[in-house]
């Protein structure tokens, strides 16, 4: 178990470097640069800018410099937001994204798990059909359509909630619900499928045969096994959550990391792009590792090599 964790942790570093290299290559392969705009710069100024950012060096020197900086955890300064380091920008904007991301996923878990479990227990009931159709609807409505529709109904028609205002619970409700919808739908479907399979398995029959009451069978035995597919969805969900927060931040004008990332891509702000990509890749890989470790707790039949 410990060696498994250590091995997986060590793999994360080269993988993150591969991602950074890939992104760097993409940004560099494209024609143009962050300072090329509508107007052509005078040659002398261009030469000065190139010198300042080391762009006059051959590409392998630049790559080496970039890599050695990143390995030391120094992503440099943003080239667009003068005088601000990438680390500063990330720590300033991360809390917004993290708040809606975490709350959104928790809400999705709450709705998805309860709806999925209940649908599996009452299989083929009207609740089952209703909630699963609703889940399919949740999978099919793009979040940038759902978000504005919620704003339309709850802000412009009913005047219940603010359309976009950070701070306070009222301003969080709509963004979090928008973000949670699609994951709640996924989790509900996965939970239902997993629970249906588990409820038919031998160890549940054994538990019932021992004379355990239905509550213990459900919560102590069945739910543990039924949660495995939900857990394996957590890794992809986190990656998709990133895309979701980009949309939600744009729709509700939240100054989160997603918004900053899109800005940096449009600005060709290379240090900021690389910094955010590296940070988010490592975040996702660490979460994937945590998920893999959690399997063992949920399903004792899983062994680590």
């Amino acid at each position, binding site marked *: 178990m410990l060696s498994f964790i250590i091995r997986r942790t060590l793999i994360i570093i080269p993988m993150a470097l591969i991602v950074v290299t890939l992104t760097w290559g993409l940004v560099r392969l494209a024609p143009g640069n962050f300072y090329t705009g509508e107007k052509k710069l005078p040659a002398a100024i261009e030469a000065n800018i190139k010198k300042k950012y080391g762009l006059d060096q051959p590409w392998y020197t630049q790559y080496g410099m970039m890599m050695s900086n990143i390995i030391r955890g120094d992503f440099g300064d943003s080239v667009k937001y003068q005088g601000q380091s990438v680390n500063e920008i990330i720590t300033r904007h991360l809390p917004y994204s993290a708040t809606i991301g975490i709350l959104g996923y928790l809400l999705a878990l709450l709705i998805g798990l309860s709806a999925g479990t209940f649908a599996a227990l009452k299989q083929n009931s009207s609740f089952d059909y209703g909630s699963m159709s609703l889940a399919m609807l949740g*999978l099919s409505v793009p979040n940038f359509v759902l978000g504005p529709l919620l704003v339309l109904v709850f802000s412009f028609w009913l005047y219940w909630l603010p359309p976009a205002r950070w701070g306070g619970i009222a301003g969080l409700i709509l963004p979090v619900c928008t973000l949670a919808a699609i994951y709640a739908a996924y989790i509900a479907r996965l939970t239902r499928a997993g629970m249906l399979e588990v409820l038919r398995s031998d160890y549940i029959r054994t538990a019932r045969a021992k004379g355990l009451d239905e509550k213990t069978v459900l919560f102590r035995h069945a739910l543990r096994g039924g949660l495995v597919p939900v857990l394996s969805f957590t890794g992809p969900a986190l990656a998709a959550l990133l895309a979701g927060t980009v949309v939600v931040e744009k729709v509700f004008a939240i100054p989160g990391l997603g918004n900053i990332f899109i800005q940096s891509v449009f600005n060709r702000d290379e240090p900021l792009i690389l910094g955010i990509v590296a940070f988010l890749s490592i975040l996702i890989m660490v979460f994937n590792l945590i998920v893999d470790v959690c399997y063992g707790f949920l399903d004792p039949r899983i062994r680590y090599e």
Partner: protein
Amino acid sequence: MSEEVSTQKPTSLWRDAWRRLLKNKLAVFGLCVLVFMVVAVIVGPYIVKAATGFSYDTMPTDGNLARSMPPSLQHPMGTDDAGRDLLARVLQGGRISLMVGIISTLVSLLIGVSYGAIAGYLGGFIDNVMMRIVDIFYSIPYILIVIVLLAVFGGPSTPEWIKWLSTNIGGAGNQGLSQIFLLFFALGLVSWLTMARVVRGQVLTLKNQEFVLAAKATGVSTFGIIFRHLIPNTLGPVIVYATLTIPSVMLTEAFLSFLGLGVQPPYASWGSLAADGIKNLAIFPWQLIAPGVTMALTLFSLNFLGDGLRDALDPQTRKF
């Protein structure tokens, strides 16, 4: 009883699957909506043009009066903020959205199926390396890479070969069409991973069967065995997975168009139409609702059809 057996035709896998699919009401509903939608986006623009005289880029002649009109008999879905008929635009946008969904899925099929089949059939060290590469790609937040890819290669800096393709196949070499061709590849490139895993798993179970041995004995080349004998046998799961890839690709396309990275004017997709509609949400909500609901309905049907196909083609993994 015996008569019944003798008159019954032998049922093939596909006939069987088709029968099971027809029993699934939701999947049939999805199939019907989908067929309707495909026919609508193909012939719809001509019908609208013939009936009302509007095409997706017809600017109103009466100037500001026709801008952002609510739905009416003349404009069943209203007009957008430039006064263009929204129904014609939604139908035209559907062409692009569905095309991006289908072609990107085909690109991902091409890569994923060959990759998975080669890895699975060759096995051993090569399989190990190839699948490790897939694992690495899996843990990359691909959406970030796609955003970077489209931002740096989109617009005026589209690679020459994409421009060439859009000129020679698409018929117009303009920037908007090049961007759509770029989307095909960008989205295809990121959605082949699961397909490769599915096909590899299938090939692993198939490659030790007698028909492969027979092919080997008669001297069929490795290439021939993989592409003529093994891949056709993986078709079931591939079709199921492809049906479920189309809606996810369409969602990603809409997401990118919403960010301004996907389909660009003069072209429009459901995603870019919805993104335009959001600007006027408070006053002219139909500009979001019309493309948004059409898109949601299509994805809804695709998901139901995909689920139904999975149950029909692969009864063992049936979700009870």
